[in-house]
């Protein structure tokens, strides 16, 4: 399974960036191989609807699980369509967030946790 964490940098030591559509990077963790890889979030350059663009990018990278801070209604709809599980409200270092996920300490989001905020 591929797990993506929205982050402000490229490594496990960087912080989770709670803004899904505007985060700088995603740290991708493959829990079958233990490998990590960082990708730049090009979706953040969208004038509007950055969340939708970002989910498109995650879908292209075959992501199965997303861990982030906030997900708006359009991004949530897109995540559901792409079949990506989402965990919201996470914060801290990417390494610690990943550990919390593995320990089952995160809760799966059943809906968007913030209102519409793009254009």
């Amino acid at each position, binding site marked *: 399974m591929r797990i993506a964490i929205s982050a402000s940098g490229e490594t496990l030591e960087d912080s989770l960036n709670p803004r899904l559509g505007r985060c700088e990077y995603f740290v991708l963790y493959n829990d079958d191989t233990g490998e990590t890889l960082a990708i730049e979030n090009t979706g953040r350059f969208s004038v*509007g*609807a950055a969340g939708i*663009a970002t989910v*498109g990018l995650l*879908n292209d990278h075959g992501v199965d699980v997303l861990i982030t801070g906030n997900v708006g209604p*359009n991004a949530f709809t*897109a995540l559901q*369509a792409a*079949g990506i599980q989402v965990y919201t409200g996470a914060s801290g270092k990417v390494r610690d967030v990943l550990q919390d996920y593995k320990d089952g300490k995160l809760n799966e989001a059943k809906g968007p946790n913030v209102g519409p905020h793009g*254009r």
Partner: protein
Amino acid sequence: MIISVASGKGGTGKTLVATSLALSLLDEQKQVQLLDCDVEEPNAHIFFNSQPVYEEVVTLPVPQVEYARCQYCGKCSEVCQFRAIALLKRTLVIFPDVCHSCGGCWHLCPAGALEPVAREVGNVRISRAGSLEIVSGSLKLGTHISPPVVKAVRQKENRENIVIIDGPPGSSCPVMAAVAGTDFCILVTEPTPFGLNDLSLAVEMLQVLGVPCGVVINRDVPGNDIIDRFCQEKGLQILLRIPFQTKIARAYARGIPLVKSDPLWREKFRDLYHRVAREVQQ
């Protein structure tokens, strides 16, 4: 003749000027139409005891997919500049609230699987107060693209009449839709740094659109000349000064237009109109 009222900064007195200007012209030989193009917060009608005469819904075309025909090629999502269609695995998702109705997707779909359907974005209401016709646009709650509603209001304008357009604040698309093609734009400002900054943006916008303009200073305070200096520098006429007075604010807050609270203003607003009309004729 079509006269628009804009400001740049919000809350400077666009509606104060537009409503009093319209009322001051009622005994001219022409019909007067007051168009409220501030569709996110229309409020000009509050100042009149008007009777509703007409209402229509404003819609925009947005794509709808016929899944049986869709080949999941992704062409539609590729051409959409606003991310209103996303192809995610084998699901095509449409986001009508971000769609700008360009039609690219349904024109370019190779399978003919997309077709436009109407989405309600607001309404236009016409009411009458004596011989004054008030046309008011209102953006539907939750919708954020207002120019189509502004344009729907402006479809009701009749050049044979004297048309006064009460515009939205700012200097972006909604304002441009309200002032483009008008014969003259009255810019209402206040002598504050914010008023000046946004006035200069509005003047720049009007230059791009080729609409001539002049300035009304509201809440004018003797000795404060920041707007005067700007107007001198830009060669802009100051058409009217409305002083910073409690009695003006008090009447306005009760919903009484300036020309009704103090009949002396009727002459000043009629004079404002004639100055604008002379400018337009030149």
